[in-house]
């Protein structure tokens, strides 16, 4: 076995049928599994112009080649579909345990098409797939539904099934809805949960135990042991943590020379939210819906009041996703926090994105409110990043008289008003009043509201950006723009590129500016374009392997993806050849968007994200990214038309894509 099963499960909910499809070796050799396999299927099987919420849309649950082979930090699963929020290819990526669930049922991907007449869920085990009535599950939140499905399908002596499930946000077909597993790990972005809801599909339950292996199992395990032992070297002694976060205050500038391995220090101790002091002190965390600065609007005292230390006070245990040796997650007991009108108790620790979004971004220093909102959104199955962007936009619309107090349900919706923010989040999730408009995201809301509200709808290509200020990182700004799934911080950026050390293995990847002046990063040069493309291709490769972004930033020496893939598949490809696969996946996704009429410039980041009108104070003062020039240069270097972002025919030929883009009929049904 080469890590992949060679099979996908296709379920047609309209017909109530499922069948197994054998996938040609060539597809894996060209596109790996995961994001590549999903993009290939969606390109070939979703008709041009299809309504994302129609039965024509495909919903793909997929995982990577390395998952279940013995490699570590390789437990990601992805949901790939046509996105209602962007109109292009949608892709949300998640940890937890569902990735292994797909594989152990004997599949690399589960594809759902059509629409069920009434709510259903899928139960998949070694014998095949059953479409089951979702009565008693539909209407439950993600946590309740998962518990109920565990209860229904657990048996003495048999391992509990894994479940991917939507909450009420997905059932209502919100464009910000995601798909959850493990009681709140969410594939949040691009509205993939809304698509699932449009198919009347509540959940996918995987309960198989088929074995998975790679060609050279011992080599895979040996490499995994190396990675795990290095990570263990990077942890802090237990007596150290208090106060460490504050050391960022003494750092002069965002000029770093990180060893990616040592990101484990931060992640292992605090989780991703440990970044908050850093992002606050350096200006990397956007403030006041990207319109303000920490210096003006959020004091150091407020930063301290809402940082990751405050979360650790509630932590009862660490949490590890499947196959992870890193453990950035944690479980908190929030039963005694304020605002907890739902009686939540043990919950997942908020990620940095949620933590920053519902504190500094909205000028809220009530940490309990953030903890409550994070869990509420997980249970509703709604994307915290996009929802926070909607709240920020709504506050500014009220502030500027575009929306009245009555428009927002009589709330005193102002910066930092925790009670009003909580209530407005509920309005969005429940689609009450103007919450229904915002449940479609900021771009849609701006179209409906009008009156110049698009100034406050901070998004790129229909996707609200994460909590990383691209004005300070032109590479990241460019990646926000050139990625076919736009506004995606996990594609990389200058800081992350510095961690990855790709230049040590990939012949054409330029060395990062490890020390000294980084002003060259704001120039639309070939060197900067190559760095951007290295991030973009590498991320696609990781997504084909089933890897995690936090593994990716450990660096290629510590997270040996190229070696793992060769060991699993028996191939003998070079890092350059693997990066070519990453480019092929990226370009296929670009072609999906073009096929559906979503042209590349649509993903240009919002003016605020690139400082078209620069700030005058704070860390982002006078920072303007020459985004148009940088996107054009990046496209040119990639072999795309620099004016339009459309891949050149010669590039498609070099990548062997024309043959892969005409394979709708070339499927082999085996069961």
């Amino acid at each position, binding site marked *: 076995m080469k890590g992949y099963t060679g099979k996908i499960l296709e379920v047609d909910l309209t017909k109530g049928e499922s069948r197994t499809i054998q996938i040609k070796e060539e597809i894996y050799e060209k596109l790996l599994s995961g994001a590549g396999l999903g993009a290939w299927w969606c390109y070939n099987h979703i008709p041009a112009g299809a309504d994302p919420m129609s039965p024509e849309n495909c919903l793909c649950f997929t995982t990577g080649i390395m998952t279940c082979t013995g490699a570590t930090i390789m437990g990601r699963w992805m949901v790939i579909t046509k996105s209602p929020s962007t109109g292009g290819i949608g892709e949300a990526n998640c940890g937890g345990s569902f990735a292994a669930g797909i594989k152990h049922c004997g599949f690399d991907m589960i594809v759902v098409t059509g629409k069920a007449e009434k709510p259903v869920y899928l139960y998949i085990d070694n014998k095949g797939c059953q479409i089951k009535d979702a009565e008693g599950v539909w209407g439950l939140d993600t946590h309740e539904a998962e518990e109920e499905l565990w209860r229904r399908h657990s048996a003495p002596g048999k391992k509990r099934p894994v479940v991917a499930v939507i909450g009420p946000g997905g059932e209502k077909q919100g464009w910000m809805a995601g798909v959850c597993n493990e009681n709140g790990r969410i594939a949040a972005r691009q509205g993939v949960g809304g698509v699932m809801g449009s198919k009347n599909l509540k959940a996918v339950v995987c309960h198989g135990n088929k074995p998975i292996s790679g060609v050279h199992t011992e080599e895979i395990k040996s490499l995994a042991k190396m990675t795990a032992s*290095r990570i263990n*070297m*990077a*942890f*802090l002694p237990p007596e*150290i943590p208090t106060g*460490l976060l504050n*050391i*960022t205050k*003494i*750092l*002069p*500038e965002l*000029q*770093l*020379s*990180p*060893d990616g*391995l*040592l*990101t484990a*220090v*931060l*992640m292992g101790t605090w*989780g*991703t*939210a440990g*970044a*908050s*002091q*850093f*992002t606050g002190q*350096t200006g*990397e*965390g956007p403030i006041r819906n990207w319109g303000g600065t920490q210096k003006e609007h959020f004091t150091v005292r407020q930063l301290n009041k809402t940082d990751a230390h405050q979360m650790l006070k509630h932590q009862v245990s660490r949490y590890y996703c499947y196959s992870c040796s890193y453990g950035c997650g944690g479980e908190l007991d929030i039963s005694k926090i304020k605002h907890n009108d739902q009686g939540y108790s043990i919950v997942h620790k908020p*990620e*940095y*994105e949620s933590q920053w979004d519902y504190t500094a971004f909205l000028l809220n220093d009530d940490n309990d409110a953030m903890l409550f909102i994070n869990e509420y959104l997980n249970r509703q199955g709604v994307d915290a990043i996009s929802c926070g962007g909607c709240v920020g936009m709504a506050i500014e619309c009220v502030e500027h008289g575009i929306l009245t107090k009555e428009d927002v349900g009589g709330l005193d919706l102002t910066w930092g008003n925790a009670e009003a923010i909580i209530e407005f989040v509920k309005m969005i999730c429940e689609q009450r009043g103007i919450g229904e408009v915002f449940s479609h995201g900021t771009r849609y809301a701006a179209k409906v509201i009008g009156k110049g509200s698009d100034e406050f709808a901070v998004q790129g290509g229909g996707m609200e950006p994460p*909590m*990383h200020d691209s004005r300070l990182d032109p590479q990241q700004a460019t990646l926000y723009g050139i990625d076919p799934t736009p506004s995606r911080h996990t594609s990389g950026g200058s*800081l*992350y590129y510095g*961690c990855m050390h790709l230049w040590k293995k990939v012949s054409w990847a330029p*060395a990062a*500016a*490890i*020390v*000294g002046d980084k002003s060259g990063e704001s120039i639309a040069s070939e060197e900067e374009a190559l760095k951007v493309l290295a991030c973009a291709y590498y991320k696609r490769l990781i997504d084909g392997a089933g890897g995690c*972004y*936090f593994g990716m*930033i450990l660096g290629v020496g*510590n997270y040996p993806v190229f070696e793992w893939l060769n060991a699993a598949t028996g191939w003998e490809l070079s890092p350059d050849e693997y990066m070519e696969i990453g480019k092929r996946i990226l370009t296929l996704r670009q072609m999906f968007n073009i096929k559906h009429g979503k042209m590349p410039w649509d993903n240009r980041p919002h003016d605020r994200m690139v400082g078209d009108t620069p700030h005058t104070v704070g860390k982002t003062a006078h920072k303007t990214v020459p985004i148009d020039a940088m996107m054009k240069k990046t496209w040119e270097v990639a072999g795309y038309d620099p004016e339009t972002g459309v891949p050149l025919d010669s590039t498609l030929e070099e990548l062997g894509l024309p043959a892969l883009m005409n394979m709708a009929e070339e499927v082999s049904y085996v069961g």
Partner: protein
Amino acid sequence: MRIEFHGPSICDFSNFEKDGTIEVQDGLTLKQFLKIVKLPMLWAKTLPLLVNYEKVPMDTVLKDGDIVSSYTPLGSG
């Protein structure tokens, strides 16, 4: 000998090459090297400090090509 160093921006990088390496005299111990790059000893002793991804004593003699890594705060997530 040439040492690759990854450390926080409070260090002195003035004598480093663009690739993050620095030429130093043979036979330096880790402690002596850290003095050259001006990494505060409190930082070095408190936070993770690795040589070739291993924890080693301060009196370890460095050799050509070694990678010295000190914790650097950053953001992600």
